[in-house]
């Protein structure tokens, strides 16, 4: 049943995101084509500049729009009128919820892939590839590559953290009888501050256990500390996501309150 639910959610998301992806890729192709001719026709430089700015905005808006479609789908299919159809399907609540979590991950992955592809189409050339290789070699020699990779993984998990925090606060807010949106926002703030308090305690404990980092002259000591710190923070993110899933499941299973 999970596959069937995913099929319909993928169709819903595809209708909204595929046009965006095509616009991104089309803009990237246009930038590349203009780039090929701007040495010959100098007036094209203006269009190149404008299109580059528009392309950057498109990437940012596209990312936000992708998150927005996931949130909208979550609310509409589980807590608005469509919920009368969704919650009476012969599927488990856990499958209904898992579908949304998986879709958030899938749409994120696809959007990132399209963005990377679009940037490559627009700008990639041998000079940039050589430059990137040089930077990676330098970072590796300095011992910064590992914490940087960990940090990038952490950023990915941060996205999931915030998406699932929003899902959870919606699950709680929409279980109330009135002011569902206000309650959802309030619970998002409450949960956010609880999580940040836990993170601060973690940071405090780690700093207390490694006071030598504050006075270290050797960058390797600091880098090693940061790597372990980020790794620990990543574990917390995974735990938070698990807790968010449990709370959302509990609210949907025992406190569903469709209008």
């Amino acid at each position: 049943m999970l596959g069937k639910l995913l099929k319909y959610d993928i169709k819903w998301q595809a209708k909204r995101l595929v046009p965006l992806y095509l616009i991104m890729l089309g803009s990237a192709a246009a930038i590349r084509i203009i780039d090929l001719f701007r040495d010959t026709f100098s007036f094209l430089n203006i269009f190149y500049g404008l299109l580059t700015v528009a392309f950057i905005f498109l990437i940012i808006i596209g990312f936000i729009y992708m998150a927005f479609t996931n949130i909208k789908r979550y609310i509409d299919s589980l807590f608005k009128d469509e919920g009368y159809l969704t919650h009476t399907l012969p599927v488990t609540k856990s499958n209904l919820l898992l579908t949304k979590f998986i879709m958030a991950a899938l749409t994120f992955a696809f959007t990132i892939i399209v963005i990377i592809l679009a940037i490559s189409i627009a700008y990639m050339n041998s000079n940039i590839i050589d430059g990137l290789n040089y930077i990676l070699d330098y970072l590796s020699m300095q011992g910064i590559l590992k914490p940087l990779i960990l940090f990038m993984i952490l950023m990915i998990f941060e996205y999931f953290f915030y998406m699932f925090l929003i899902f959870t606060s919606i699950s709680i807010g929409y279980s109330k009888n009135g002011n569902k949106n206000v309650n959802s926002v309030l619970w998002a703030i409450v949960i956010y501050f609880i999580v940040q308090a836990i993170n601060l305690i973690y940071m405090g404990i780690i700093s207390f256990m490694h006071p030598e980092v504050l006075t270290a002259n050797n960058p390797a000591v600091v880098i090693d500390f940061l790597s372990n710190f980020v790794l620990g923070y990543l574990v917390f993110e995974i735990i938070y996501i698990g807790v968010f899933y449990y709370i959302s499941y509990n609210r949907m299973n025992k406190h569903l309150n469709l209008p």
Partner: protein
Amino acid sequence: MLLTCKNIDMKFGDKRVLSDVNLNIEKGKIIGFLGKNGSGKTTLIKIINGLLSPVNGEILVNDEKVGVESKKVISYLPERTYLTMNLKVREFIDYFATFYEDFDKDKAYNLLADLKIDAEEKLSNLSKGTKEKVSLILVMSRKASLYILDEPMGGVDPATRDYILDTILNNFNDDASIIISTHLISDVEKILDEVIFIDEGKIIKHESADKLRSENNKSIDEIFREEFKC
């Protein structure tokens, strides 16, 4: 017993909307679920369908608690427009066929053809009455054990109401039961086997329709009006 409601209590905040509701529904019956606005009909229906959790009590469908198994045998038509996905009628039929093993696609298409509804049309482009008919067709095209229709005739013209009643009568099997919640009692009472009156969250009457009519020498509609006189 097809449906058993045991000691169901429900509150919204401090307001009690269902109070110690006990109900048994057998197979092969058409039951009218009748009450004033705000009496608790839709709340109880939503609890039976797993859309609300009661404060107390238990619902059993074929001796199973409300869950995946009960949803396989209940075909539910809510009072509100719930087919809000931007799909064509044909796509909704495919949707129902995907999730419900008992869904009869041929029956659905035949019923659509009877009404000359184009399956390639988007549901959002259809009139309110036509949307209601499509919703009913999707529900009645299942070979369910229990059909629950919440205000199936609300806001539609008399000719459509007659069509809805005919569709209900002609498309359910003798082993199944139908619960119809409605205010349009005079339209529906001719098909009812049993009636349930609910008032202020309590079941005040559950009897055979014929017995009620013969004992009081009145129609169900008249009995209802007397019972719930303002």
